[in-house]
């Protein structure tokens, strides 16, 4: 039994839901993200947010998987500040929907001034609505600088409890920064970028099992929706206890996510055999 706390199921097939259910997935959370192209109007986001809050929960439930969402404009589409503000004006209404956990995945992509300003405005929305926050840290050479800018911006904002914020896509050079400031840390299991399963297990061995989770971030790119159960297999091969494996793959995401009343990992009867 496991939770994949970050996966973009709008980009995955129904067969992936079936495979994840067979592998033991009982709940997923899906942050709003970039579709691989820039939407031509804010109305495109209205439809996307409906997909995240209406269509995907139904599609997941057929396989006994509970589906939850996070709402935002992703930093990859945040460079047009006026456009971003129009999208952000839609967020409060969607935060009221029954499967929405909070604001995410917000953060930085190329570490620009406008991305940072939009990130800070998202933080204010989260603070105003007492919402959980899921943060995307930048890719590759931009990650270390971006993580520092993000953590400094949260500190300067000052209205959010670090225990209610998860900073995602940490690697060896950023995990300590995140954990030492009291945030939760997410490790994304990707074939080429971010963490491999072997390195994620290394990080667990070096930094412990508290306030840390693993996710697939499976999307339309090179990624694996079964990355979490495969990492569980790696932990078993590396001699980790069943208790530690369950903590990383189920207890920790449940503990963080249950800070929202909308989260549940309770068994759900599938409607597809």
């Amino acid at each position, binding site marked *: 039994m496991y939770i994949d706390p970050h996966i973009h199921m709008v980009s995955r097939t129904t067969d992936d839901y079936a495979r994840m259910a067979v592998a033991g997935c009982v709940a997923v959370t899906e942050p709003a993200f970039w579709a691989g192209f820039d939407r031509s109007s804010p109305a495109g986001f209205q439809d996307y947010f409906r997909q995240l809050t209406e269509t995907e929960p139904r599609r997941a439930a057929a396989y006994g998987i509970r589906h939850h969402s996070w709402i935002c404009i992703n930093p990859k589409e945040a460079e047009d500040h006026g456009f971003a503000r129009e999208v952000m004006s839609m967020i409060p209404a969607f935060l009221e929907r029954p499967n929405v956990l909070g604001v995410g995945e917000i953060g930085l992509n190329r570490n620009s001034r406008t991305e940072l300003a939009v990130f800070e405005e998202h933080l204010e929305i989260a603070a105003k609505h007492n919402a959980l926050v899921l943060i995307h840290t930048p890719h590759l050479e931009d*990650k270390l600088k971006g993580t520092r800018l993000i953590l400094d911006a949260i500190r300067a904002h000052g209205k959010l409890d670090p225990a209610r914020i998860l900073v995602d896509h940490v690697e*060896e050079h950023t995990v300590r920064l995140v954990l030492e400031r009291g945030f939760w840390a997410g490790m994304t299991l990707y074939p080429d970028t971010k963490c491999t399963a072997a390195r994620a297990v290394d990080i667990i061995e070096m930094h412990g099992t508290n306030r840390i989770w693993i996710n697939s971030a499976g999307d339309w790119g090179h990624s694996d929706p079964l990355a979490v159960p495969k990492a569980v297999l790696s932990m078993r091969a590396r001699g980790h206890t069943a208790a530690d494996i369950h903590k990383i793959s189920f207890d920790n995401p449940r503990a963080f996510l249950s800070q929202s009343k909308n989260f549940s990992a309770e068994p759900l009867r599938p409607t597809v055999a």
Partner: protein
Amino acid sequence: MSTPAGTPPLDRKALIDLGFIEARAKVLDIAAFLDRLDRAGGDATPDFRVEAIRAALRIALETSPARAERILKSWSDPTTEPAARADGKAARGVHPTPKT
């Protein structure tokens, strides 16, 4: 954690048995990649990405710990101020002026 932080549950011999073949394959892939570039025609000017890999290999051969962390830091953007504008959507993998 059932073992002290930093200490893997498996001993060195068990970890070598588990990971050697995969590491061997990755070393060969890197060597073959560099060979492939040597055989290829075109501009022979050093590429900052390939130079970053060569520098990372030197770090990997060191005996001091945290090699992966130090390699990631060597590939990272060393600046601290936000950029005036986003320079495209995609990162390149290493900063053009990596710290070594």
